[in-house]
């Protein structure tokens, strides 16, 4: 199973949302990290065929076939959880899932079975017949996830799936996604590093419509060796340091304020933390 992006481009007038992204996805979880406006959602919309490609906008292949030529056969294989919560607030989760199942072309008998299964999986069986409008944000996200999983899609695209979830719910969702990754291509777009840190097989960093870094979490962390350090300083110096360097966390210690800095150049008195680098530092390096 392979999903390939070839020189994917998209412009909205003078704004270049994507500037030629090429990548191959195979089975596993891919974290797509980027700040707001980086081009993540545009890339996803092009994969899900929700927006029209530009004339020289590149191609998307699934198992060697162009998805636009595959048409609905490709869409049959996609499960999509959009960033913007989309449902009918007057529907119950059960009604909503049955409705989506019909759009996905799932047969009635299978739809019924999968609906009940998924309601149980996302822990919404007890409220299956209450209106979605009365749900909390986290419950609504779980409804969205359930509809994305209907039809057992080969490609699962989750755009900001943990938005609005509390820490416990985030962990539950992460673990669940991790369990799905066999025999599926899962694209998880987010700007929250902790969402993908533990579960992603590979991570892509997107900035201003381009992939600026990609690799396994270990590879990306290793690439930061010698580029992440900490410095202790007083409050008065923080501002001047912020102007010169990319500063991540600021922690209060007995000795003073400890600033975490990532970059090609570090202050002379910065202490390298090569044994303690994480993906946040990688994020800071590219997006700070």
């Amino acid at each position, binding site marked *: 199973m392979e999903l390939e992006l070839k020189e994917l481009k998209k412009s909205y007038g003078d704004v270049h949302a994507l500037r030629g992204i090429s990548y191959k996805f195979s089975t596993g979880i891919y974290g797509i990290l980027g700040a707001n406006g980086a081009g993540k959602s545009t890339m996803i919309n092009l994969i899900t065929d929700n927006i029209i490609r530009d004339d020289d906008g590149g191609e998307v292949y699934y198992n060697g076939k162009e998805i636009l030529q595959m048409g609905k056969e490709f869409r049959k294989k996609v499960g999509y959880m959009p960033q*913007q919560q989309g449902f009918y607030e007057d529907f119950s989760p059960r009604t909503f899932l049955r*409705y989506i199942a019909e*759009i996905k072309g799932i047969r009635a008998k299978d739809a019924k079975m999968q609906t009940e299964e998924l309601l149980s999986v996302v822990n919404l069986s007890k409220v299956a*017949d209450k*209106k979605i409008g009365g749900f909390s944000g986290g419950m609504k996200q779980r409804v969205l996830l359930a509809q994305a999983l209907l039809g057992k899609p080969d490609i699962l695209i989750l755009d900001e799936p943990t938005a609005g979830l509390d820490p416990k719910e985030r962990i539950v969702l992460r673990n669940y996604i991790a369990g799905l990754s066999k025999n599926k291509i899962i694209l998880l777009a987010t700007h929250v590093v902790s969402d993908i840190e533990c579960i992603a097989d590979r991570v892509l960093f997107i900035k201003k419509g381009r992939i600026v870094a990609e690799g396994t979490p270990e590879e990306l962390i290793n690439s930061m060796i010698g580029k992440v350090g900490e410095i202790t300083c007083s409050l008065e110096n923080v501002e001047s340091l912020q102007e010169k360097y990319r500063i991540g966390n600021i922690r209060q210690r007995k000795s003073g304020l400890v600033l975490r800095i990532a970059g090609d150049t570090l202050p002379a008195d910065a202490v390298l933390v090569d044994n303690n680098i994480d993906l946040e530092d990688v994020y800071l390096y590219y997006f700070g």
Partner: protein
Amino acid sequence: MREAKRVINRNFLILCAILFMLNAFLIIKDNHAQKEYAQAYNEMLEYAAKMENETVSCKEAVSLAWKKYFARHKIPFYGNVQDDKDIMRKAAVSARQKLDEQAKYADGFDSLIEEKIDEAERLIKSGFYKNNSFEYVNLWKTRYDLNALKDIEVRLSSGSWLEKLYEYPYASIFSLLLVLVSIYGFFSERKTGLYLCIHAAADGRARLFLRRSAIILMENILINAAFFAESAAIHISIYGGLKYINYAAADSEILMLTAGTLTRLEFTAAMAFMSALAGTCLSIMFWLILSLFRNINIGMFIYIIICAGEYLLYLFIPAKSMFRGLRYINIYYLLFPNKTFEYYNWGYSGNIFSLRASTAGFAIVLGTVLFMINMYMNSKTYYTGKQNIIETAISVIMEAFMRLLGRMPVSCKEIYKILISQKVMIILMLLIYAAGNIQAGIGTFYDASKSYLSGYYEKADGLHYSKELTDIYNQYYEEYKKAVENIDLHSETGREFFYYRKNLIGSIRKNVDYIKRMNEKGINAVVLKPYEFEGAFGLEQSSAQKELALLNVLAVLAISSGFISYEKSNGMYNLSMSYYKRKNWLNRKIRINLFLIGLFEITSYAIYYKKIFETFELKNLSAPLKSLPMFENYILNPSIGGFILINMLYSFILLSAVSLIMCMISFYIKYAYCLLTGMLMVLPQLLYMLGFQVFDKLSIGRYIAFLPCFNEGKISAYDCYGVGISLCAVGAAFYVYIMEDEAVRG
């Protein structure tokens, strides 16, 4: 006041403007046809008012006035006149009739009052009624009220505007609606979480409560005053009578006991005041009920149930029942406060109440009690999120319904989405109510000619051109010859009679020739009495047919406006477009749209045609359509019943085209503005209904109804076909575009 500013926000003001315009529209639509009548009436009244004095009675003044009017405008009393003069004559005759009645009333007012007082006294003294019985006390009260009228000087003056205003219910209804909308806005703090801040503040709840109470009171007073002022102004602009505004309202006989000794201005103010009082009570009730529920929509529903329950009590409890207190002390009179001004007394044994006093008392007492309860609840209520018993019950019912909906086919879910989620059901119910109020006419008026010719039609009913038919004709011809044999053609009466009989036999001949011509062409036509069908399908019904078509177009706009815009507004569009059967999804939505449009059309047309059938007593629906000369140029020859169905099908096809155009608009316009944008299609017809004739040819209703064009003549009929074909072509093009992949993705 900041709270007032928050509640009376931009959306509220827009709604205000819409309701004011709607109010004006309704008054003008219902009354602008009376303009000729009003002009004639006012002119005659001017003449009469100048002539009326101590020696010339009102009756004599009116008699001179209308003769002067007829002479001045050269309107003949008798004989045939051209169309526009005929309209003037009809208006002048109606105005004259009204003035005659007024004059009789004015001249005889004093003796009328004396007569009624004497009658009351006679009944009191008769001993027929027990002392202390309701009837006995009622007689005393009536006598007392009549006595109060003795001092009124009743004169000839124009008060039609006030008579119409008195019967007009919407000023109160719109005022109440606006206030209820602003009360609904009080509860936005629950959605935003602001109620927590209010509850945590030292006097948050109390202060807010007082401010909101003041807002309700001020809104009721000001909004009612504004609507009544607007309604009065528009009625006066149509009927005239501004200079008589300080005359006694009792100058109009129907307002004699209703308005008592009040002037017209005072009576208008009294109606506005009563409406404000009733509105305040209903507003407080609405506020209290909504406060009791976590989900305010349930509160609204309960409010409607209470009002409906009260209405049923009013409807089913007879006037003399021992439970009549429940009929007269009823929310119904708060909803329609103008009705309380009708002179009516009720009571038990020796206790008597006038309807308006009991209603005013009810409003004050109920309003005060509910206000106190609300004040108490406001200080005690904690928004814990707990449901009360009604909410729990409704929740259980809704869950059961959702379970059922989950199992139903997707089409049912789509219908639910349109009717319930998008609240289109409310609009459709209002449109059905409007369809039920379309005037179908008063039936066929049989003058001497029609009565005579009916005899021929009944004898020849169902006959093709045949010997039997010609025999019947010959009989009538012989009769005609006998009738005119010895007529003196030198006398005017003789000539009149001759031409009258000649016209009659000519009509019969014309009909026979018509049937002959049709049968010779191979067209199946039989003799059929045409008058009821002319009334049901002719030019007289043009207004009604256009209105009905307009209501159907409005239904189409409401149903179709959310086609894509609603999906985009709640994020479902992108989701659905990413899936396998997205085109099926679009197709299904279009099919459901058309299904609902068809259902509405059948319902609205059924209501209309039921009225038509009852009014005109239509029979012989299986007769061929071309039996009626008015349909000679129609392209097909179905049965008359079949024609009704074909016409409905034709309308449905055009409505479907309008639906597709609306679906197209829905792609590009936001949900909140989609329906308003679609309303541009009906704007010309709305302007036409307000009296701007120039917009008639641009009115969408005339083309969808078809018959108004057809009855105007061949050219109009061809115009109609042309417009119909164009609409269908545009609709079809939009359908293809909507289904096009690129358009779908956007």
